[in-house]
């Protein structure tokens, strides 16, 4: 098998990730529920995971990171905790449903901006947008957007599900970041989180046991407790720590350069095929290691099936949970086939994919 569906989840992880999860399952107690060694072991390693992520993004305070089950849960908690019905909120047509649906549910007044040329309406309270499109691989200049938001008193919430670990993500890009652990950070599925750049008065949208303040009626509003209710996924979080440590040790720039080289190799190898149509700005740099395409006259599902059945190449077809961008691209009826590359993919694998595309697109 050749796995080119890394934007869905990275399949190959550093070996330390699975080893850590196995160790944690056999040794971790429940963080914050007692003071015995297994419980403290879990609590300490969860804290160490915060420091590893803080190091990656240049954050001074590790406790400004809260763990969740996914970027989707993070976005639900942040939007639910901050945005009120009627608030004027800007977003883009690049967004994943994990952003769009919480916004729709909030009852806010939503409007769409061009992320490359943002024009904000007066009294806009929030910008909620992706750092990089999961469909096209195009990148938003988040630092520039954030500067504009600060000048206009707009709180910026950034979805870094596709970018964290693949391109630099730094604290000068947003007020709040929603991330996942299982893509560019090489962690286990079921891990993700929220990073805040300053203090916020979040409404409590998730409540229950947290190991402290047992006799109080309401959940603590302190970070990270406000988002960390119930038994944390300490096994997964310890695995995530090892994934992030790999990214820190390897360096985001080195990871990006390798992934970008694979994407360029693939694009250059197939761009002259007459029937192949690409989506996104292929010349922009940086861009995510994603090449999305169709073969004219072929449904995306059929192309993905041929790649898998005939060549053992795993891609993703269909809508990619990005309905508005598909409408912009005119692909809502056929979908798109997405090739997404990882640090662990090789040039030889890309060459096989080029050969497969050559045969299929004849």
């Amino acid at each position, binding site marked *: 098998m050749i796995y080119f569906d890394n934007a869905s989840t990275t399949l190959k992880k550093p070996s330390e990730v699975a080893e850590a999860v196995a160790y944690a399952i056999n040794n971790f107690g429940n963080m914050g529920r007692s*003071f015995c060694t297994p419980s403290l072991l879990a*609590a300490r390693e969860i804290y160490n995971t915060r420091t590893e992520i803080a190091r990656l993004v240049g954050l001074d305070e590790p406790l400004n990171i809260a763990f969740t089950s996914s970027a989707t849960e993070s976005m639900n908690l942040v939007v639910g905790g901050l945005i009120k019905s009627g608030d004027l909120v800007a977003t883009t047509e690049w967004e994943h449903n994990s952003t769009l649906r919480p916004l729709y549910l909030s009852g806010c007044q939503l409007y769409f901006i061009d992320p490359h040329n943002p024009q904000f309406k007066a009294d806009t309270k929030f910008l909620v947008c992706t750092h990089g499109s999961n469909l096209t691989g195009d990148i938003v200049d988040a630092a520039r957007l954030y500067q504009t938001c600060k000048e206009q008193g707009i709180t910026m919430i950034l979805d870094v599900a596709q970018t964290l670990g693949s391109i630099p993500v730094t604290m000068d890009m947003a007020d709040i970041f929603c991330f996942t652990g299982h893509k560019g950070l090489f962690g286990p599925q079921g891990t993700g989180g929220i990073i805040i750049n300053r203090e916020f008065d979040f409404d409590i949208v998730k409540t229950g046991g947290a190991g*402290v*303040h*047992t006799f109080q009626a309401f959940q*603590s509003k*302190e970070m990270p407790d406000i988002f960390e209710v119930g038994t944390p996924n300490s096994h997964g979080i310890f695995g995530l720590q090892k994934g992030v440590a790999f990214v820190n040790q390897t360096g985001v720039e080195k990871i990006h350069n390798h992934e970008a080289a694979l994407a360029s190799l693939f694009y250059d190898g197939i761009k002259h095929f007459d029937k192949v149509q690409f989506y996104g700005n292929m010349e922009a740099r940086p861009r995510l290691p994603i090449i999305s395409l169709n073969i004219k006259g072929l449904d995306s599902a059929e192309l993905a099936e041929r790649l898998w059945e005939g060549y053992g190449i795993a891609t993703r077809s269909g809508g990619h949970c990005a309905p508005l961008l598909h409408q912009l691209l005119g692909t809502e009826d056929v979908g798109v086939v997405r090739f997404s590359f990882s640090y662990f993919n090789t040039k030889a694998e890309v060459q096989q994919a080029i050969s497969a595309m050559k045969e299929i697109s004849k």
Partner: protein
Amino acid sequence: MEYIITFTNTSFAIKAEKTLLAQELQVGVLPLPSQISAGCGICLRIKPEEIRPAVGFLESVNVGEMGLYSREIRDERYTYQKEEIR
């Protein structure tokens, strides 16, 4: 006699433990005594000769609101006395 430092959540307590261990102070982790706060959670135990530097180090980092207590054994039971942080 020894001192107990309490925190408002487990993450602050763990951060405080790491901070003090990095300064090579002797620190123990205990379950939060019910006499101090009903419920559950953890707190730190500090030796009397190290309590002032310990508080000083913790005040230089963000560990939330702390509580300071002295602990002694009287009639074979622990008794707790709230102390001023400063």
